[in-house]
């Protein structure tokens, strides 16, 4: 009897994990998205034009690809010196998503399945507001974004 309930529990657990897996097609952000200790260069250099996006939001392969193409970074030459590039890449790769099982490596966080599924209920009008403007502007709504906090309790959608 006991072994039967064990089997049942295992079955439920496996089904649940498969459901989560299926929901985001294996493109799941890591936990935590931001380690307790962050690299100072990452903080300084990556926050020049946008929020320093936490490493756990993308898999290691994405970060490697992104960091090796900084001279063509979404329309801007954002190339850094060799030592900074190496140090920042190391930090990003080491703390990349630990729950990304898909064989994909998007360059844009907004192309990932976890991102799309979590933002699907928002109307297009919200994104057009001057206070939001861009999908890369996490901090417009996620008040704890700079600390790597993206949970719903800290979301305030601006007017």
């Amino acid at each position, binding site marked *: 009897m006991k072994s039967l309930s064990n089997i049942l529990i295992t079955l439920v657990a496996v089904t649940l994990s498969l459901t989560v897996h299926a929901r985001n097609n294996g493109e799941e952000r890591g936990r935590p998205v931001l380690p307790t200790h962050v690299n100072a260069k990452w903080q300084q250099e990556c*926050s020049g*034009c*946008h*929020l320093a996006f936490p490493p756990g939001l993308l898999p290691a392969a994405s970060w490697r690809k992104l960091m090796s193409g900084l001279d063509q970074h979404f*329309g*801007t*030459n*954002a190339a850094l010196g060799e030592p900074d590039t190496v140090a920042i890449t190391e930090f990003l790769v080491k703390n990349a998503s630990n729950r990304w099982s898909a064989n994909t490596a998007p360059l844009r966080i907004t192309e990932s399945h976890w991102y799309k599924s979590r933002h699907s209920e928002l109307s297009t009008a919200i994104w057009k507001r001057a*206070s*939001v*403007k*861009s999908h*890369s*502007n996490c*901090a*417009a709504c996620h008040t704890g974004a700079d600390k790597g906090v993206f949970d719903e309790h800290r979301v305030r959608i601006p007017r």
Partner: protein
Amino acid sequence: MKKNKNKTAWLAGLALALPLYAGANPIQDSYRAAAKQENPAFKDFSAAAGRKLYTTKVGELACASCHTDSPMLEGKHAKTNKVILPMAPAANPKRLTDAANVEKWFKRNCNDVLKRACTAQEKGDFMAYLLSR
């Protein structure tokens, strides 16, 4: 006693020299040296020329597109909406104090706005404008 006198003379000299130095910026000085190399007829940097550069639009962007019409004000990145702190040292004392940082942003933003590198003359003019605010 003699030592004290020397010290007084040195301090007096420093007090005299400091106001003269107050307007100078060592980063701008290095651009001055480079500008002389670029152009033997180089005279000085001009805040007016810097202002002109600040508002010059090539394609879609001018410096003012992200930094607003005044470098004394907080700006916003034209694409990402990220807040940009004021560029003029009078409004933000951290500006124009780190040579590598200044050079990094000239390299990046001249390329973004003008689609080319800035000359030493342009960099010095731009700094003259920011320092004049």
